[in-house]
């Protein structure tokens, strides 16, 4: 019976959880079908303007990072990483890149989605990291696939106008290239329509993640991590907007009915970094036994938010290229320490967080590099205990559960001791 299905997080699968499986399956099926019918396949980094691609009927969009996360969550990470390592790619490279390279050059073997259809165009950006650009370049070298690189300036304060215009200029180049390669003219109305769907979806996503502020929390970050898949792959579609509405509505109903993922919630934590894909079930159930819930995570705000703010940005104008350029500087990357600290401290206050788990990620240096300073800032500014643990988001070989839990349990004890002493 469907009601008895268990999620990755160990509790009963919600209807939105079941729906997610279906829409993601449909997405991958449609992707392969489209490619088989001769559609133009774009592989893109997660934060490229996916809505722009919706202005071309002939284009389908695949996201290697999201695909790698799916495999890591299904415990296939190490096997795929090893394939890349056997090809002499260093173990120090991001595990998403190793998983993807390992799978791509092995014809998608071992992938639950049969890999991704071969690309006609690669679009990367340096918002997140320069490694991603090099990773996409591997395919450019090996297969001769053209590679368009979006250069997104780093920001230490609000995005500058000249940087925004610089990004828009690059969008015009991208449009020209896509028109030349597909033989199709961009339909800007469809781009606007896609942006409207994304806006609608983000409105509901915001409703959904806001249930973290409820006591006990209406959600766990682990559920949010899993539900992020379509934000990365299906932006600009009505299916995404419908799904997030369903998700937020169902969560609201559950909260109203008094159904909470961790009813005996004693500790409300915030997670900083990419999801530990290989640990979702184990970590959430071990935390649940301790009465702890990671209610929120900076990662779940990594798309659709603007620098210095965790909340998704709601665009109301009618210039899609402007909006898409504006959203290139998100909360996490590429923004400076001051902006990251501002966004996190506001969220801590708003959601009511007792402690922060900074997950130093062996793979994602760009996410992890500032964490030590950020930890110091948050401990001092917000006056709450924090802890740093070692993880790798997709390569379980670089993670030690006992090491991580010793630190997390000590964090919970610190929270408890402060309460007792207060």
């Amino acid at each position, binding site marked *: 019976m469907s009601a008895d299905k268990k999620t990755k997080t160990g509790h009963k699968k919600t209807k939105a959880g079941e729906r997610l499986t279906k829409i993601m399956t449909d997405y991958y099926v449609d992707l392969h079908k489209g490619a088989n019918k001769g559609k133009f396949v774009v592989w893109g980094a997660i934060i490229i303007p996916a809505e722009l691609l919706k202005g071309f009927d002939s284009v389908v969009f695949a996201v290697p990072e999201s695909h790698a996360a799916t495999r890591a969550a299904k415990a296939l990470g190490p096997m795929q990483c090893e394939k890349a390592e056997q090809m002499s790619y260093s173990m120090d490279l991001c595990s998403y890149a190793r998983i993807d390279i390992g799978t791509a050059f092995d014809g998608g073997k071992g992938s639950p989605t049969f890999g991704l259809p071969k690309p006609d165009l690669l679009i990367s950006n340096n918002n997140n990291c320069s490694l991603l650009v090099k990773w996409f370049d591997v395919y450019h070298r090996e297969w001769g696939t053209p590679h368009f690189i979006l250069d997104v300036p780093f920001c230490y304060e609000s995005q500058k106008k000249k940087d925004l215009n610089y990004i828009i200029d690059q969008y015009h180049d991208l449009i020209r290239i896509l028109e030349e390669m597909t033989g199709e003219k961009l339909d800007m109305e469809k781009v606007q329509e896609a942006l409207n769907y994304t806006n609608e979806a983000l409105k509901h996503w915001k409703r959904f993640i806001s249930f973290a502020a409820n006591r006990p929390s209406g959600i766990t970050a682990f559920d949010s991590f899993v539900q992020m898949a379509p934000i990365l792959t299906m932006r600009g579609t009505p299916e995404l907007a419908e799904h997030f509405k369903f998700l937020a509505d169902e969560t609201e109903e559950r909260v109203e009915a008094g159904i909470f993922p961790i009813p005996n919630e004693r500790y409300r934590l915030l997670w900083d970094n990419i999801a530990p894909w290989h640990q979702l079930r184990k970590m959430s159930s071990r935390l649940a036994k301790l009465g702890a819930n990671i209610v929120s995570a900076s990662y779940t705000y990594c798309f659709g938010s603007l620098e210095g703010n965790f909340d998704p940005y709601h665009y109301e104008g009618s210039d899609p290229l402007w909006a898409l350029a504006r959203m290139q500087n998100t909360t996490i990357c590429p923004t400076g320490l001051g902006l990251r600290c501002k966004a996190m401290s506001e969220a801590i206050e708003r959601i009511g967080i007792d402690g922060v788990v900074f997950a130093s990620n062996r793979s994602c240096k760009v996410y992890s590099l500032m964490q030590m300073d950020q930890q110091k800032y948050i401990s001092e500014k917000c006056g709450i205990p924090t802890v740093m643990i070692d993880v790798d988001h997709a390569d379980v070989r670089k993670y030690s559960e006992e090491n991580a839990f010793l630190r997390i349990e000590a964090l919970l004890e610190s929270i408890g*001791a402060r309460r007792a002493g207060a």
Partner: protein
Amino acid sequence: MRALAPGELEHSRECGLTKVLTVGVDSGSNTTKVAVMRNGTIIGSGVTFTGYSAEKSWKRLLEDVLSDLGVDMSSVGRIVSTGYGRNVVGIADKAITEITCHAAGAHFLDSSIRSIIDVGGQDSKFIALDGNGRVENFAMNDKCAAGTGRFLEVMARALEVDLDKFGEISLQSENPARISSLCTVFAESEVVSLISKGESRENIIAGIHEAIASRITSMINRVGVRCPVLMAGGVAKNIGVVKALERELGADIKVLETAQVNGAIGAAVLAAAIEG
């Protein structure tokens, strides 16, 4: 630590007091430690190698410590377990991390202590305490073995010197060798190459202590040292490491006779505080 006065337990029993002891079990990666407490006093403790079975080790050790005190499990009330194997101590009333237990142990033994450096077999920790002995902040080594007891064990093997003699030997050094690698495996090769170049044992060992001290100090500086500082864990017995750390930190470090069982003492103290 105060020894049990003859007849003390018998007297308690005669007064109808059973289960008068509280116990702390620290099941570490390398060694297992036990501390027994009665009426606010630590009356017994012991240390053994953890070996293959953490469960067998703590059970045997606890039986031995209790039998030295002339009692058995029937006198034991609350038990708190700590250490990496804290969850394998099935009979424990509560499992508490070493961080909290070390803080409780140090505060119990000397309430002025504000920082603890604990260097054990598998990890090193720095714990900053507030004025009430509560954990205010802590830092631990990352996955790497550098800065832990394991690092010293590997070096002792390479030098064919008994680890217990490391401290003493290093004090004779006049010119510590420079070990620059942070990685244990690379540092071992550096040591082997120093041996082949004819560098003296005392200089190499002193160099190893400086390397470990500098690694631990960078971890400590993440939190910030505050005095008085106590060193706990098995490595505290190594005077060479303690001296090197004092030089690096520019602060005196207290080492108590109970350094190695500090976490177990803290666990026993916390066991005594469990209500009900």
